[in-house]
């Protein structure tokens, strides 16, 4: 680890991915993800890596799958529309058990929308953009430092489970510049016994996404389901802040968690017992974070119409205690705006004389 540098979120993620050995990048330019592609385009010649600007994300994501089948680290970064196009390949990678990293720098949809911060692709990310019974880990960074840290983490998790991992960033975090510490260079161990490497002096490996029969395919699906269950149990990540004595807990991820963090601090300065749970993995949703807090009041805040609300409701005892505050279309609340919403709920539900 070196000294801290003042760096943009997109660039930080790209540099960190290169440093952890991802030397294959495929993509198509789309704001607000384009700096990742530009950075790879500039760096791959000197790194002796491969950069291809494909004609669409359909082909780029299948190129990622192709490299992943050889056991090498590959990545595609795009925005929501690109994930929509690449969704078929995500399903195929889960089916074929191929480890790769995809990045969605969210912009406001639906459709073209705009190019600023939004979190409207939560469902697309966690409920499955593609077809079939599959899951993939979704990591949601909330700072430039986490854009750095989650690149190697995503590849490690992808390798561990032989499954694609999605980093869910947004048009705000992607463009923000902050101080971050970049990791040292590492060389990943890509000697996987399943990888397609030429089959010299060994039996040929087979990577497939289709069945010989429904019976055989059900057996294979059950193996996948066991793996997803293991991921669900072992990989829940979150951060809790001042939840112990809190009567009201804000649940927010990504850039909204940064805003919520400041709002919670204002609340605490005003002697209000307010805390925060920040899901870091959105799939698996960190239901364990709610252990011991199931009877509290919750305020879910997102830059969408309330897509995470149902996952929070599934993690608590009384669904009626879960409220929502969000903005749409690329609008972002200020910490004060969110604090005012906290005050409204607090007055309604808490016995408090300090508000």
């Amino acid at each position, binding site marked *: 680890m070196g000294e*801290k540098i003042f760096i943009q979120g997109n660039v930080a993620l790209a540099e960190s991915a290169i440093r952890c050995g991802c030397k294959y990048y495929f993509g198509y330019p789309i704001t607000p993800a384009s700096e990742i592609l530009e950075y790879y385009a500039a760096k791959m010649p000197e790194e002796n890596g491969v950069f291809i600007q494909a004609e669409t994300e359909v082909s780029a994501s299948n190129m990622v799958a192709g490299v992943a089948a050889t056991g090498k680290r590959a990545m595609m970064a795009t925005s929501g529309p690109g994930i929509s196009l690449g969704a078929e390949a995500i399903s195929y990678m889960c089916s074929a058990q191929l480890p790769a990293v995809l990045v969605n720098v969210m912009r406001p949809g639906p459709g073209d929308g705009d190019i600023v911060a939004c979190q409207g692709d939560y469902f697309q990310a966690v409920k499955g953009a593609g077809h079939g019974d599959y899951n993939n880990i979704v990591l949601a960074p909330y700072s430039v430092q986490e854009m750095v840290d989650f690149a190697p983490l995503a590849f490690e998790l992808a390798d561990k489970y032989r499954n694609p991992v999605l980093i869910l960033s947004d048009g705000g975090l992607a463009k923000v*510049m*902050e101080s971050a510490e970049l990791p040292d260079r590492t060389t990943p161990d890509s000697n996987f016994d399943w990888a397609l490497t030429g089959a010299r002096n060994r039996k040929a490996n087979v990577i497939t996404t289709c069945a010989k029969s429904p019976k055989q395919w059900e057996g294979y699906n059950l193996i996948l389901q066991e793996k997803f269950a293991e991921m669900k149990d072992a990989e829940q990540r979150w951060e809790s802040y001042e939840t112990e004595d809190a009567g009201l807990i804000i649940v927010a991820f990504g*850039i909204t968690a940064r805003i919520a963090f400041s709002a919670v601090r204002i609340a605490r300065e005003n002697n209000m017992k307010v805390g925060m749970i920040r899901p870091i993995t959105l799939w698996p949703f960190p239901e364990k974070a709610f252990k011991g807090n199931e009877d509290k009041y919750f305020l879910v805040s997102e830059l969408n119409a309330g897509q995470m609300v149902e996952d929070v409701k599934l993690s608590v005892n009384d669904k009626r205690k879960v409220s929502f505050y969000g903005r749409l279309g690329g609008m972002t609340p200020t910490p004060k705006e969110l604090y005012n919403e906290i005050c409204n709920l607090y007055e309604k539900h808490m016995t408090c004389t300090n508000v």
Partner: protein
Amino acid sequence: MLIGKILGTVAAGKGYKVTFAPTYGQEKRGGRTSCQIVISDSMDSPVISEADVILVMDEKSLDDFENSVKKGAYLVVNSSMIKKEVQRQDINVIKAPMNDIAEDMSNPKSANIVALGTVLKLIDSVSYDEISRHLEDTFKGSAVEANKEALQLGYDFVKVK
């Protein structure tokens, strides 16, 4: 964008927790841009509720951001391009003809650095000297001295503190 980045880079280099959050439209060239900079001892929201200092370069920006200045804090107005009066009475307004100052020194492109100079009088976390030194890394050749002069003129124009 440039002066925001300069300010952020220098403050981050001093060990502050800094976020520089830019906003711009879909246009390749032109269009309106803005940025929010947080310089803090702890990690904060990159989105600002109320600012200690807001610099507005044109009238549309004045309309959009006048209400985002913290009570008693500073609004710095580029009076070369803003003829409209500021409505709020509860903030300090500093007017500087940034484009005119830059044109008078035959370097109209440096209006942004003049603006940076005016803002520096109002910020405690970074000093005039630190920013001036940083301009040597930001610009090349004759542009270094020209921009240092622009910074000085902007800085000297503001008579507070």
